[in-house]
């Protein structure tokens, strides 16, 4: 099948590529752009490990064709930290609150939580749990994941947060 040229913005950088229409966005990101932060977990749109931000929406990039992202703004976990390596406040939250064990779900969790906090900067615990219900953690670390998101929300609201790590 003939390849199609796509142009989009990924983590603030203009990128282009030649893809077959059947190429999934996750494969384009991981294999052509080398962005291996978004993971392939279940490959059946259940687990959320492949979550990226696409034009202000959290999407499962295993269930979207790369051609559908033509002209879009995509943000992956790689695009969250500052250029000098300073962690995004959500990444800092996951570090401080031990929001991960094996870490496989973490890029999806953080990317999803990023959009959640854009839409609802002061979520309740219940709203966080509802907001990340499309992301599965098989280490069963949800308690600390919720705390990590709360930490980020508090920090973004200028509230002093007790730091737990180290």
């Amino acid at each position, binding site marked *: 099948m003939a390849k199609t040229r796509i142009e989009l913005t990924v983590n603030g950088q203009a990128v282009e590529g030649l893809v077959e229409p*059947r190429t999934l966005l996750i494969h384009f990101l991981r294999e052509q752009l080398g962005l291996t932060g978004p993971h392939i977990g279940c490959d059946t749109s259940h687990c959320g490990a492949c979550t990226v931000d696409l034009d202000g929406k959290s999407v499962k990039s295993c269930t979207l064709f790369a051609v559908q992202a033509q002209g879009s703004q995509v943000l992956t976990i790689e695009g969250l930290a500052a250029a000098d390596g300073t962690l995004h406040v959500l990444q800092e939250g996951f570090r401080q609150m031990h929001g991960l064990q094996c870490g496989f779900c973490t890029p999806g969790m953080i990317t999803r939580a990023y959009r959640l906090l854009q839409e609802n900067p002061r979520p309740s615990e219940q709203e966080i749990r509802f907001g990340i219900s499309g992301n599965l953690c098989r280490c069963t670390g949800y308690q600390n994941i919720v705390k990590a998101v709360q930490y980020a929300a508090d920090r973004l609201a200028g509230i002093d947060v007790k730091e737990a790590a180290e």
Partner: protein
Amino acid sequence: MIPGSFAYHRPQSVREAVAMLADLGEEARPLAGGHSLIPMMKLRLAQPQHLVDLGGIPDLKGVRAEAGDVVIGAMTSQHEMIASPVLAERIPLLREVSVLIADPQVRYMGTLGGNVANGDPGNDMPAVMVCLGAIFQLAGPNGERQVAAREFYQGAYFTALEPGEIVTAIRIPAPPAGHGYAYEKLKRKVGDYATAAAAVVLTQSGGRLTSCSIGLTNVAETPLWADGAAALLVGSTLDGETIKQAVAAAEALTAPASDNRGPAEYRTKMAGVMLRRALARARSRAA
């Protein structure tokens, strides 16, 4: 998992989309949110040669009030429906249903049009549209037409859609101010289809029901409109005996499959339980 090869088309207008689907024929499928179709393609259970992506057609988006109706573009996502002030005011039932569909990521992509047009008995919106008396606006090679939701569903994955036709909008008569509503869905986990679910819209006056409509999800090959059960309830005070009769009438309509969600008998009984709960909650919300 990688789908089979296909050619991708992204029309800019309904007219262009319909012409493409007519030209490309049986090997073409319209692509809405893709969260039913793309997983099927990855499993190679669907292998369309052409995908006509409806995502670039502005006319298919948005929610607007028109006189006593609400008109929702077919490509309006569940996320957009949850956030819509028009729906919150006029048909709050749709928010209640939308938040029970799949998960947040899927709701950013999943559309009302895809949900109603797919004909999957597991989808939630069809029974809700049947309950609300929605009208589907269709466009196809022979022009536009309207089909009532109550006449749209013919079997699992079989609908009134003719080859090349797409759903462009859903027109819903807004229930009267002060109506009560509820959607009760039994599911095993977030993202699951219903074991059984019931949608109820009702009005009351002086303690008696003045109208009632009931839709049931995933307990037959098509969504069920339990009009006989609803008729038993109208005029009643929702007393225990009348509810018992209505629940029995609704259960009698069901013909669920036995599957991982439970044996058929269980799913029928759960449809009854969901109906009881939906009636109670709808009434508690009615003025």
